């Protein structure tokens, strides 16, 4: 009994340190804010389900080679189109490849695509939005007009046209999606910038002689990052679906890469007799998108209680 007292008291000490009203360092304040957000998030069961799904996706991508004994590319023409059984949990495809292994390795591709789009589109949107919001005037007008134009474009169709011009492949699909994905981030960071632009601490930095570039990069961008990250989380599902759609049309990842959309497409011709070939990768897309949507929804509820319940 005496043993269990010790951990409880350290835990409550950590809790006190996190919850204090008078943080003594920037780190402590940040950790505290993060902890409060976390407390809000774990009260939302749907968001937790989403978080678990996203963590599972990360685990599947990281551990794919160890989770299954089959290679995603190893063909076994005698064992083709086998229904799901103990040896192949999701069955085998038209070349006898283990579908489970391909789905697990497909998680890597999906993460790769999503991460690449986020890494390209979010900084572009952040930059355009903060510059427009901080500088104002004609720069703002011109950049926001540009944003509106891109926002009014049909995403999938434009991505189709881009990929058709650049040639099919993952990198081009990523580029095409990123090109149409940045405008919402620009809008959000502009709105955030406008609310902080007039604050006293910005005026103080300006009086100290900081350049405009420094103010934007060091003092405004960090304040916009969190809302952009939440918006990116909400967009993840859309990005995955667009990428899978391009794959399904044969314009994304090329065979033999185990991309989920392309796998659904190749299973299409066996749909009526071997349903599992097309169905299994589709379930993977669905579950992962649902996870990102649930998580993003929960995060948005946290930041904007008015929208939620």
């Amino acid at each position: 009994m005496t043993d269990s007292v010790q951990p409880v008291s350290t835990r409550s000490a950590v809790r006190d340190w996190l919850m204090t009203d008078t943080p003594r360092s920037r780190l402590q304040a940040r950790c505290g804010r993060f902890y409060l957000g976390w407390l809000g998030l774990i009260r939302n069961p749907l968001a937790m389900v989403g978080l678990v799904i996203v963590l599972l996706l990360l685990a599947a991508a990281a551990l794919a080679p160890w989770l299954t004994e089959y290679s995603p590319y190893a063909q076994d023409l005698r064992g083709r189109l086998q229904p799901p059984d103990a040896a192949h949990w999701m069955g085998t495809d038209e070349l006898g490849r283990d579908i489970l292994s391909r789905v697990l390795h497909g998680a890597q591709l999906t993460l790769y695509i999503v991460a690449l789009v986020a890494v390209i589109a979010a900084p572009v949107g952040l930059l355009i939005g903060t510059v427009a919001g901080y500088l104002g005037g004609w720069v703002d007008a011109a950049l926001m007009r540009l944003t509106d134009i891109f926002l009014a474009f049909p995403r999938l169709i434009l991505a189709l046209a881009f990929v058709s011009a650049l040639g099919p492949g993952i990198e081009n699909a990523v580029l095409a999606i990123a090109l149409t994905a940045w405008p919402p981030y620009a809008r959000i960071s502009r709105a955030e910038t406008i609310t902080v632009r007039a604050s006293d601490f910005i005026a103080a930095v300006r009086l100290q002689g900081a350049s405009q570039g420094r103010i934007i990069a060091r003092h405004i961008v960090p304040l916009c990052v969190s809302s952009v990250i939440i918006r990116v989380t909400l967009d993840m599902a859309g990005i995955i679906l667009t990428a899978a759609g391009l794959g399904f049309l044969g314009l994304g990842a090329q065979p033999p890469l185990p991309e989920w959309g392309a796998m659904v497409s190749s299973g299409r011709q066996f749909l009526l007799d071997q349903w599992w070939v097309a169905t299994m990768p589709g379930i993977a897309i669905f579950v992962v998108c649902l996870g990102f949507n649930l998580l993003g929804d929960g995060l948005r509820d946290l930041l904007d209680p008015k929208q939620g319940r």
Partner: protein
Amino acid sequence: MVDPVSARPAGSRRRLSLPRPIAVAVGIVAQVGLTLLGLLLVTFLIGRVVPVDPVLAAVGDRAPQAVYERVRIELGLHLPLHEQFVVYVGKVVTGDFGESVLTARPVIEDIAHVFPATLELATIGVLIGILFGIPAGVVAAVHQGRWPDQLVRVFGLVGYSVPIFWLGLVGLLLFYAHWGLVAGPGRLDIFYEGLVEPVTGLIMVDALLAGEVEIFWNAVSHLLLPAGLLGYFSLAYISRMTRSFMIDQLRQEYVTTARVKGVAEWRVIWVHALRNIQVPLITVIALSYANLLEGSVLTETVFAWPGLGQYITNSLRKADMNAVLGGTVVVGTCFIALNMVSDLLYRLLDPRAR
């Protein structure tokens, strides 16, 4: 957006100015014109970076140098890029997208031929979305936080998360192959094909015009699954927006007043509050209609639906760039136009936005 009336300096009140709604309309039209120009610039640039040489595509690779040069000049490819763009815009505005390599017909004729199929699909889809989405959203708002709300929320989130092409395949597998409840891919059974004179291009309308009830029901049976699928996707969006508009309204004081006066609860919700969310709902519906036009690309591929989406993807596979870019411009224009209509309606109908 700068308000043109209130931004005017006080001293210049006698200057010529347009009535407010017209000024708004002019502003929006200008914005749309700019956006369309942007779209054309993008499609133009895409057409330029394509590795296919349009001259070689036209004359073949054994044509003599003189012929090659003449065609190059005929196609306007010797001009500087910005002049080529002006020529391109002029052509597109007059409906000239060039000739499809695949069908050897002008792209605009091909598009006119396939567009009604897409229109039919998207229209029925959005109607389904309205029919189920608005009541679902209202019910969710009224029971905010309780199980009907959670049900609608999860149902909507599933709609946001499921790949439309996969759901289409699963739908075909279950409803067509296993249970035989609906007809399969395509717009009509093969033996009905070509029996009805195409007047509008909308098969359901054409069949009724010709008095062919049997064909009409066959078309409905083919349409049910793809349109229901698209309807589900617009339902997810419409119900979510309806819910959040409705929650805002139910907090207003007039709702309390109506309740205190003893107005029946259903009347408070379905008459008083619903009337006040009509305007934002119209814009939401216009937006989801635009999304369906775009979303039909994948759906049409799955259901072998001979519409614009399938036309674009088929041309893509054959690297028929004129057709791809023409289709892109048409879908993009519809998309932008619907955006504009929704914006315009919102500003004209909502007294607060005026």
